[in-house]
């Protein structure tokens, strides 16, 4: 059986999205900035896509700027606000300890350039405290950037409340909503969001396209200078097909949101319950306040890369927070941020579901994991030591 359970990494392009893309990959190939009919047809594609994305998020059409993905949107929002606010002498940025690297490496770079960065704790449940945000805001705070939902443990942050606190203090609020858009209901106005990053391939749209929501009135400097595309804010000949695919996928996801959430939540909970039966395992991140498709479990005494490669041999695609899968020496900063010891973090497994996963697939995963864990523990000197320490050997 083939089971794709790494939807937080990327998703399969939906048939609807592909169909929306095809005209722009074939006949309607004109440059959207050109005046002749072929160009204007492309231009309509761009504008219709922008309007569709805006509609789902409660934004105005002109507040949506297409980018090459979530990473670019994060870089643009954070570096842009930093540049804007530095002119007013504001050089302090508040973020959380478990942001995506697109945010963390960007603020790190700003730190080298003289910004002061506050990394808020995320506690054992993987949720930022609004009170902490409030207390961290200073006179010279330029930006608060807190992700909407975490990519590894799926925990959902109190975005509307964080936004409210920021606005009370007159500070701009950016949220990396790459994992949330298309998966939870979002209203940028009601939720007090000033800037928001998204990426199409996380909701069955194409890779290499995303968007930044930037509230009217924020004069964000450009990250990519050049032609007058995106109303002079983001240069580059428009990849109209990709925008159309993103819009179609988001609309599709949004139309089915309630239904998908119900289905996914049931699958997720079944999977969590099934896997927690394995001895010495634990769920990472808040059990309730998490994305409907996210399961993240640590198994003591095993290493994640081996686990996921044995799973791959069984046809199951998954992900891990072990050091080995990242190519670095340390395991996932997310798992360390919620307080896991290194050796437990190395043994983590993320399974991220989508609405096309089935109960049979879930049961197949539940049947495969324990035997692999047993196999790995049987050859693990770490597991041997743990068992000895617990007096089991």
């Amino acid at each position: 059986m083939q089971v794709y359970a790494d939807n937080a990494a990327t998703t399969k392009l939906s048939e609807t999205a592909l169909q929306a893309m095809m005209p722009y990959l074939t006949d309607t190939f004109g440059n959207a900035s050109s005046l002749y009919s072929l160009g204007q047809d492309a231009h309509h594609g761009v504008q219709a896509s922008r309007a569709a994305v805006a509609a789902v998020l409660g934004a105005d059409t002109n507040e949506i700027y297409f980018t090459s993905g979530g990473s670019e949107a994060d870089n643009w929002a954070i570096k842009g606000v930093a540049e804007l606010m530095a002119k007013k002498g504001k050089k302090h940025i508040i973020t959380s300890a478990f942001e995506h690297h697109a945010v963390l490496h960007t603020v790190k770079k700003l730190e080298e350039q003289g910004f002061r960065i506050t990394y808020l704790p995320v506690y054992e449940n993987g949720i930022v405290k609004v009170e902490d945000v409030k207390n961290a805001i200073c006179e010279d705070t330029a930006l608060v950037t807190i992700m909407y939902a975490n990519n590894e443990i799926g925990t959902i942050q109190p975005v509307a409340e964080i936004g409210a606190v920021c606005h009370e203090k007159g500070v701009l609020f950016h949220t990396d909503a790459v994992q949330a858009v298309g998966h939870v209901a979002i209203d940028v106005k009601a939720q007090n969001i000033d800037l928001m990053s998204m990426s199409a391939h996380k909701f069955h749209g194409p890779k290499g396209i995303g968007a930044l929501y930037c509230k009217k009135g924020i004069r964000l400097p450009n990250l990519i200078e050049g032609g007058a595309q995106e109303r002079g804010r983001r240069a580059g000949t428009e990849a109209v097909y990709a925008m159309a695919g993103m819009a179609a996928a988001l609309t599709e996801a949004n139309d089915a949101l309630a239904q998908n959430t119900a289905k996914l939540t049931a699958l997720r909970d079944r999977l969590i319950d099934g896997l927690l039966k394995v001895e010495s395992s634990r769920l990472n991140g808040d059990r309730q306040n998490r994305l409907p498709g996210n399961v993240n479990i640590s198994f003591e005494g095993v290493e994640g890369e081996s686990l996921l490669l044995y799973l791959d041999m069984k046809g199951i695609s998954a992900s891990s927070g072990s050091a080995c899968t990242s190519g670095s020496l340390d395991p996932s900063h997310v798992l360390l941020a919620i307080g896991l010891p290194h050796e437990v973090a190395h043994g983590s497994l993320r399974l991220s579901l989508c609405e096309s996963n089935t109960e049979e697939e879930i049961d197949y995963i539940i049947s495969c994991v324990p035997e692999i864990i047993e196999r790995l523990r049987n050859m693990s000197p770490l597991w041997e030591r743990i068992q000895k320490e617990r007096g089991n050997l």
Partner: protein
Amino acid sequence: MEYSEKVMEHFATPHNVGKMEDADGIGEVGNAKCGDIMKMYIKVADGIITDVKFNTYGCASAIATSSMATDMIKGKPVSEALKLTNQAVVEALDGLPAVKIHCSVLAEEAIKAAVKDYYDKNGIEYDPTLFKEDCCHYDHHHAE
């Protein structure tokens, strides 16, 4: 990152997995914090490694290098096992991704640690510079 077919073969069905109740030498290197521990057991008769087993906690390449390295010393004189380099293991596996080379170093060290243990237990004299302490040794790191 990408593994060779050889690595995947040894990972999928590793050779010499197991513990050894009556080992003549045991070596354990690596540490849990870094995500790799290798433990090797050797049985020695007339200066020949007649049997070898390993237990490894770590990634696919840690398991594959353990498997390959134990294969390479089984049936060999102890003195020859001591000469096994990590490069030789990497070559035998048709290469390892750059970020995984440390696993082969670990395998080399695990064998040396097992031999040292065998020498120590049997009062055999040796040149101590053969077994210089390395940053990857478990006991060294555990204190951190």
